[in-house]
């Protein structure tokens, strides 16, 4: 129960070598692979600007990153000779086809899109990483890890893989069954809804005016790592969980078993945390 996980990876400007997520290495996709073009299927599509990219995968890892402003570039490593092509619809909708079918079957796919593109990925198995695309993103995953960094709004539904979202500029909604959820937000007006059945939920950021954070898990823990600029009311509801508070919250309501109402600062934002058997951990974010 106290298995608190979640080192929040990602984002923030980093050298290229540091941008390779751990799971890439685990699946054997190194930075060197990203630079190698021999043996990879490559395809390019000229576009007018930001696109709405749709991509489905039955198997295989998917990465989407920003690239040139006027093109979509696709590189498929270890694709067993799969041909990649595009299906365009309207002025900005692009779907990827693999041997003419809209479902990736194997390999490691890297897609470069113009910044501010919206991305919609459906993955049955395999990892998904969307880094810095800047538009709204939606990921539906059955198995495999999902990492999202630098999107606008993010909506993720996953069954068994863990989900990490960092640096989203808009609303973040994450739902998993057994995977852990980790969300890091910028600014003080975050809007996050994260729920999981048996995973843990970890949020890191500042919560002030306009902030609304919902974190729910049945058997996992909720961990809040709070920045100094925060000002929020906290409602915690649990059946059998406990609270550890390193932030020294001000208890703001009658203390009843299973319920905690507290405040930090002026109480501008609102954090609602709910567990059934899991614990709530509140701590200060280290500078």
């Amino acid at each position: 129960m106290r298995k608190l996980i979640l080192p929040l990876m990602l984002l923030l400007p980093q050298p290229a070598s540091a941008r390779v997520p751990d799971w890439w290495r685990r699946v054997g996709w190194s930075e060197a692979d990203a630079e190698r073009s021999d043996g990879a299927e490559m395809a390019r599509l000229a576009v007018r600007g930001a696109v709405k990219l749709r991509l489905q995968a039955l198997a295989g890892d998917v990465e989407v990153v920003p690239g040139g402003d006027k093109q979509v570039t696709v590189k498929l490593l270890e694709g067993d000779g799969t041909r990649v092509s595009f299906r365009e619809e309207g002025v900005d909708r692009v779907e990827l086809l693999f041997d003419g079918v809209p479902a990736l079957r194997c390999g490691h796919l890297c897609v470069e899109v113009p910044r501010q593109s919206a991305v919609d990925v459906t993955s049955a198995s395999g990892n998904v990483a969307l880094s810095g695309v800047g538009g709204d993103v939606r990921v539906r995953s059955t198995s495999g890890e999902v990492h999202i960094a630098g999107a606008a709004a993010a909506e993720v539904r996953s069954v068994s893989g863990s989900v990490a979202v960092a640096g989203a500029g808009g609303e973040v909604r994450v739902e998993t069954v057994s995977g852990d959820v980790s969300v890091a937000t910028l600014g003080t007006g975050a809007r996050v809804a994260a729920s999981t059945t048996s995973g843990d939920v970890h949020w890191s950021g500042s919560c002030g005016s306009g902030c609304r954070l919902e974190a729910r898990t049945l058997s996992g823990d909720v961990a809040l790592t709070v920045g100094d600029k925060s000002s929020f009311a906290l409602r915690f509801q649990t059946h059998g969980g406990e609270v550890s508070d390193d932030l020294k919250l001000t208890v703001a309501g009658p203390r009843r078993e299973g319920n905690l109402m507290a405040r930090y600062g002026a109480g501008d934002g609102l954090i609602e945390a709910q567990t059934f058997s899991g614990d709530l951990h509140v701590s200060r974010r280290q500078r």
Partner: protein
Amino acid sequence: MKCNAEKLEALVDGGLSPEEAAEVQTHAAACADCGEELRWLRSERELMRRRAARDPLPADLWSGVEARLHATPARSWARPLGFSTAVAAAAVLAFLGGRHAAERANPRAPVEVTQAPAARYRTVSMSTTDNDVIDQAEEEWRRAAGELEGLYFKERGRLRGREAEPIEEAMEEARRSIAEARRLAGRDVDARVAVLHSYSNYVQSLHTVVSNLEVVR
């Protein structure tokens, strides 16, 4: 107006006033995203209607809940039954949200619920307890999951090599996780509603996998 998935669903389900419906339709006609979502929702509802016609809901769907609850041992997840039941379960989820709100305002007020398309938009009065309703919803989700699992195993031959392994591991893990959550939740209404959301997530994921399988050779 901006794209609003709830309004699109409500439009398809006949849950909007004529004015609201006109507004949403006008927006969807001009907005590619909403237009596509609306087409998808309509085709999905049509599929569900056809399946419901083939496998109609039992007449005692809402009335025999308690009897079935007490008589029902653990059921097999793989039992294939009507897919339309997922829609009814979704309606129950929506109902529960409204019911909680209504009970906060007036704990003894009778609550009306409008069922989803599978129930032909009938409006019925509900007098059962929350747990009874949740029992029914849970049963419907399990049926939906069972049907989709059945479809998956029917089509899994389209997968190559070891493609099925991670998918089936995820399915197994989800089933285990939901079963454990259900055991943990006992008769706690809030926890059970959370479990229903887990069923919903699992069923939607199964639907996605099965849909993907249908496009590959």
